[in-house]
């Protein structure tokens, strides 16, 4: 809302500089966001919160100044001398719950022409273009009183009558087409309130007038409308039509049902002054009179909620100037009658806010509450929050940089990954009003965002990439229920086989898997295994599902070249590893309770053996066989060499493993170990159908 300081001073005689007045308004709740200097005047850009419709006007803002400065509010001249009372004109409200009051005045024989400069300037300073004297007067009064008015060309109205009703109530119709004065033909829903003459609709009530009844240069007689329309009804119509006007903006926030009369009189005076003509008597249909609400306010409650110690007279004094009618009720309380322009005040707390803002928030002391120590958080929640923080920290320490992406995804991003139609990740939550089609769904996987980040970075020459993101993903559970939200952590490792100073001694898959193992070990997870993954977007030979406690918790693997080819990735022979893991799975398997175990007393003995076996037999199987051998003396087994090539038959490989033997009771002798190891080798040879490599 733009407000001219000169104009405000018509209603409140203060000497303050505009900056000081603006500061005062800001500190009492009407934030002045900017002050613009125009022709020696200062124009305030006021941020009016939705509860303060009354401040969408000069009088409303002036009233705030009047209350802050304790200077009385001065109203403009409102005495209309009606020159004739004869009127052959009828007003009929068919939907009284949508239109609680309808008033109007007829002015005849006026001359439509340009407005005087002083009016043009005031309108323009407040952001309204001058059209002609008649329309300008309605806009001027709109700015002054915050009450929208509409002027019809009286001669275009059929049958000397106005009706107020919806297409449904007036014509039993489910909707109709109507041309508004901006020249647009619009579909008006059956439940939108309209203004009609004897034959047809002539305006969308409270939103915009019709083209056919618009005031033009040839107009001589007018009907000025001043009405109270139900806010929610106007809001619904404005939303449905996608049409927001100065009038609808005020009606939907609530106008002053009493002051509509004042605004009408003020417009009649200005009309006569600027355009001449004869003003006729007022028509006023007001089926149900407004009854102000009354609120009981306790002095003690005011002090208790705010943390101050004001005397009753101080509390009452702070409310001066707001136009509230106050009646003292003994020593403990007072009664407030709320004027219609303050529809935001409905309860004691609202009055407490009025006291607080006029007393000044900065005058209320600041103190810390006296309270018991410690929060009331559940132990499990603390544990899980700590664990999540630790997992993120582990990725950071492993060199991964944290990404934060928007939660949205486009369906084509799942197509890119060849996610099948029956995959859970296709259970997408659709947003009805997305900003862009690429952001029309809530994501079910983080990986596409990391791929996007990779493309961005590589195209900007950032070629050494390790990114991770921890975020929720969303799976639809049906159109009327909330989706399932799951927390996941995903990472992307990108390395281009370009010039590097030092060679990487392990394949990238193992580099990332090593980090994952460290992260999981850090959470105390012991039961984790890896099985070949069938994720459609991963390299089938270089991808594993991560199995925790027997359940798939995620996957790790090289991005399939089939996917990489479809990306506009300007890199030669890139190696891209992605991993994605469910946080709840980590959470439920995590064991972080440590118990001390005695250190071993006796030394260990190690034996190494190399086997030649079928190349398809994987490490996990060999380890499994070794570990399943029934002996308490085997402390640990590990594979330390895998070799294929010269000296080994094609289709075979050599696998060397190390076994560490130890007894908790004594030092093992060479002979004992020799015998045990021979049996173990025999066992593994039998299981793998391999041969000991000589």
């Amino acid at each position, binding site marked *: 809302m733009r407000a001219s300081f000169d104009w405000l001073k018509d209603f409140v005689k203060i000497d303050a500089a505009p900056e000081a007045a603006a500061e005062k308004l800001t500190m*009492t*709740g009407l*934030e002045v966001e900017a002050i613009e200097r125009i022709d020696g005047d200062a124009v305030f850009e006021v941020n009016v919160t*939705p509860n303060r419709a009354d401040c969408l006007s000069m009088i409303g803002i002036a009233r705030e100044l009047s209350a802050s400065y304790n200077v009385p509010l001065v109203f403009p001249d409102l005495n209309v001398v009606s020159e004739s009372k004869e009127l052959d004109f009828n007003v009929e409200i068919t939907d009284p719950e949508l239109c609680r009051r309808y008033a109007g005045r007829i002015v005849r024989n006026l001359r439509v022409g340009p407005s005087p400069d002083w009016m043009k300037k005031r309108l323009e300073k407040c952001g309204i273009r001058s059209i002609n004297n008649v329309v300008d007067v309605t806009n001027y009064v709109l700015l002054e009183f915050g009450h929208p008015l509409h002027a019809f060309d009286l001669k275009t109205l059929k049958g000397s009558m106005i009706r107020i009703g919806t297409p449904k109530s007036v014509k039993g119709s489910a909707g109709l087409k109507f041309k508004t004065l901006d020249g647009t033909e619009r579909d008006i829903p059956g439940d939108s309130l309209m203004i009609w003459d004897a034959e047809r609709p002539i305006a969308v009530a409270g939103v915009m007038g019709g083209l056919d009844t618009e005031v033009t240069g040839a107009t001589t007689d007018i009907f000025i409308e001043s009405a109270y329309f139900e806010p929610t009804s106007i809001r619904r119509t404005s939303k449905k039509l996608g049409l927001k006007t100065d009038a609808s903006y005020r009606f939907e926030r609530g106008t002053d049902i009493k002051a509509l009369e004042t605004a009408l009189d003020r417009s009649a005076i200005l009309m006569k002054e600027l355009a001449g003509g004869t003003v006729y008597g007022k028509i006023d249909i007001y089926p149900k009179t407004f009854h102000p609400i009354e609120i009981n306010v306790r002095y003690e409650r005011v002090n208790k909620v705010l943390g101050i110690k004001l005397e009753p007279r101080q509390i009452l004094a702070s409310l001066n100037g707001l136009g509230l009618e106050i009646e003292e009720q003994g020593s403990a309380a007072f009664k407030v009658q709320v004027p219609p322009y303050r529809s935001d005040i409905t309860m004691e707390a609202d009055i407490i806010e009025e006291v607080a803002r006029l007393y000044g928030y900065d005058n209320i002391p600041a103190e810390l509450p006296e309270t018991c120590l410690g929060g009331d958080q559940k132990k499990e929640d*603390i544990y899980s929050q700590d664990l999540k923080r630790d997992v993120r920290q582990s990725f950071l320490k492993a060199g991964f940089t*944290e990404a934060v992406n928007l939660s949205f995804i486009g369906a084509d991003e799942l197509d890119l990954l060849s996610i099948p139609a029956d995959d859970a990740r296709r259970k997408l939550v659709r947003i009805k009003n997305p900003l862009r089609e690429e952001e029309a769904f809530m994501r079910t996987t983080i990986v596409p965002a990391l791929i996007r980040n990779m493309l961005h970075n590589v195209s900007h020459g950032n070629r050494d990439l390790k990114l991770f993101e921890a975020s929720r993903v969303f799976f639809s559970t049906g159109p009327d229920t909330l989706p399932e*939200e799951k927390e996941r952590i995903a990472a992307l490792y990108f390395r281009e086989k370009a010039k590097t100073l030092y060679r990487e001694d392990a394949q990238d898959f193992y580099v990332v898997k090593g980090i994952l193992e460290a992260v999981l070990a850090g959470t105390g997870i012991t039961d984790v295994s890896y099985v070949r993954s069938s994720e459609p977007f991963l390299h089938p030979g270089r991808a594993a599902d991560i199995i925790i406690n027997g359940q798939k918790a995620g996957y790790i693997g090289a991005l399939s070249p089939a996917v990489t080819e479809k990306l506009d990735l300007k890199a030669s022979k890139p190696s891209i590893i992605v991993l994605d893991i469910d946080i709840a799975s980590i959470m439920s398997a995590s064991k972080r309770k440590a118990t001390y175990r005695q250190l071993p007393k006796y030394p260990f003995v190690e034996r190494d053996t190399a086997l030649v076996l079928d190349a398809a037999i994987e490490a996990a199987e060999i380890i499994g066989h070794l570990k399943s051998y029934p002996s308490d003396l085997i402390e640990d087994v590990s594979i330390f060499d895998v070799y294929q090539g010269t000296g080994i038959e094609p289709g075979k490989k050599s696998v060397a493993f190390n076994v560490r033997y130890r007894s908790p009771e004594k030092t093992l002798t060479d002979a004992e170990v020799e015998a045990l190891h021979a049996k173990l080798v025999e066992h593994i040879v039998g299981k793998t159908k391999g041969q000991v490599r000589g």
Partner: protein
Amino acid sequence: MSDDLKQPFLDELKSVTSLSDAAALKVKYLGKKGLVTAQIKSLSTLSPDERKQAGQQINELKQFIEAECDKKESVFKNDELKIRLLSESIDITLPGKFAAFGSEHPLSKTLGEVIDIFTRMGFSVEEGPEVELDQYNFEALNIPKDHPARDMQDTFYVSDDIVLRTHTSPVQVRVMENRKPPLRFIAPGKVYRCDADVTHSPMFHQVEGLMVDKDIKFSHLKGVLITFLRQLFGPDIPVRFRPSFFPFTEPSAEIDMGCILCKSAGCRVCKGSGWLEILGAGMVNPKVLENVGYDPEEYTGFAFGMGIERIAMLKYSIDDIRLLFENDIRFLRQFS
């Protein structure tokens, strides 16, 4: 007799130039067929008296030669080690094999700082769904359908009754429904509004907080939030409270802090005012307390909320919110 050998040894010692020369010299005098060894052997031909004296002399000579040779040898050994180590030298100015830590995202970093301050004040941390019922996001917070207050938050809709939460306030309602006062917690998380430009992102992060108990006052709200801002931005930061409007609080306040960029002198970011809007807050609206079954006569509380993007952008002087979601590592690494 032994003097006959000492001088020639010393002469020869002077011409020793390598470890092998030194070894050879040692063998020449002290070896099995060495000159000194020969003299020791010839002692048996002497009379007992002569033998004792000569033996002593030869022994001294032997020890002398031994020590001199060892000294020489160790000099050459040191030299050889030096030469070998020198040959093993590497370019210590080449960079190390890069193993830097990753960088925490500036939003996580800021969020972590905010959470830490409140947890130190005894607030717990609560979470709730990001896709939320209209009921929790609006209605229970005193924002009915068809109310202009809905214009304050441009909402993404999933259906007529399901929205992407526009703030983390619905977490407050969910917690209050399930617990009785006293309550003291914050609700951090992602929120959504359909708006996108240099200062608005359709997804952003909020931290909201709530404290409800028997005797909670507006003055407590001021105390807690001033403490928070001073811990986050420094003990001297000016703070002011001014009236505002939120449907779920009454009275409501907007909290400004002195502009940290221009030290309150007025700049582009603070639009010349010297103040930056940083928090929204207020006393919980009695209607909200009633909605969750609390008696507003018995309990009062305050609630507050802040945008993490705004705080991060101010703290790190970031002028375009989109940078925060582009994940360009040249940007992200600036916060490690």
